[in-house]
């Protein structure tokens, strides 16, 4: 029986091991004080990395943040945020 040197099917769940955040050039930074917790960023995020922290800011609003392990820095959340709470900054590695 022929044995391949390179195995061409992968075990499931390898996405959890192979982080894709390293692909981005810019990362989104959320100003927790401005965030109103409207969930718009979560709705538009193609990667599903915007999440509610469950924590409240000084105005009593639940604020959002990003899972930077997988965020590719596309900037859609920045474009759609109704209160401009998010900005893109260069991501140094």
């Amino acid at each position, binding site marked *: *029986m022929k044995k391949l040197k*390179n195995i061409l099917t992968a075990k499931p769940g390898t996405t959890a091991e192979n982080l894709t955040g390293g692909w981005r050039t810019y990362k989104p930074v959320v100003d927790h004080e401005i965030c109103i917790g409207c969930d718009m960023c979560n709705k538009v995020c193609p990667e599903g990395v915007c999440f509610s922290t469950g924590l409240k800011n000084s105005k009593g609003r639940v604020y959002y943040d990003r899972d930077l392990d997988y965020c590719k820095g596309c900037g859609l959340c920045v474009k759609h945020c109704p209160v401009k709470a998010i900005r893109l900054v260069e991501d140094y590695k």
Partner: protein
Amino acid sequence: MKKNNKQILEGSHAVAEVIKQIKPAVISAYPITPQTHIVEDLERIKAEGEADFEYIRAESEFAAASIVLGASATGVRTYCATCSQGLLLMTEVLFNIAGLRLPVVITCANRAVSSPINIWNDQQDSVTVRDSGLLQLYGETNQEVVDLHILAYKLAESILLPVMINMDGFVMTHTYEPVEIPAETLIKKYLPNYVPPKDIILDVNNPRSLGTFAAPDRYMEIRQELFDDAAAALSQIKKLNLEFKKVFGRSLGDNGLIEEYKIKDADIILVAMGSVCGTIKDVIDELRAKKIKAGLLKVISFRPFPDEEIIKSLAKAKYIGVIDKSISMGTEGILASDIKRACYGKIKVPIKSFIVGLGGRDVTKKMIEKIIKEVKDKKNGLHFVGQ
């Protein structure tokens, strides 16, 4: 083995009958002239309960190839047939089947490619996908095509590469010839049930992901492994041909790769693939009676390409003419290019490219005689022989 088990069968029917004996688990195909009779026969065989394979009807050749890809990835024997526009529609999937190292066997009923639309035979379709990683074998007679299918499954499953068997559309698919379909028990002796590689196939109890990503740090090694294994198929074909001879009492050409016909003392050697070889052999016999020393080198294995065997066969020729039923626009016949590459620095005599039979133009004995006559005088380069 009984001395004569031959039946008079249409080429397509013979292929369907041998596929029935080989017992694939899944067949998927989309009908296209001149492959149609093969898949019609297989559907009938299934409908009449003669075989228990799954026949999955597809909405296109792209889908059919994808279905056999998926089925093969689960570790079962699969079969598909197509040609021409259908084969080209499959192109993307063919690269995937080869890249994923799936031992799919496909029959190509060689047909011209549009445009202009033409349903008749040439070999432009298969040679166009020569770089996909599919191994390509060409039959001269329907018996050889039947035998090649049996060998192809053993080859594909032993080295985990897909194989495409080529038979000239109409000239072979729709022609009745005496053919022996080996008995199921004999086929099973040569080709046991497919045992897929453990742990890498798709299995609901051991889930794995198919068609994953390979970044620049791994892609090149994977492609190199594919190349190495495709090249190593040369020795594997020779080995499997010897085993074939033991079980069935016949050889595929001389060694599974090529067949020499009266070339030992030949001044003029023609090189060709497929059914046209039969016509060439007849012409050679007639010319030999007139003391013209001509011979034929038939190429069975086009991918992998048997460089060494070809150099050995052509070593003593004074004139070499390569006959193609296909063309690479702006260069020459595709087999001619490959023969030149193989012979570079080894064979000093000029190698000339002749294009015949495009779009089903009959290749007559007169044309072959003309080529043999003209191969001495013609300038290097490409020559169309249409009359």
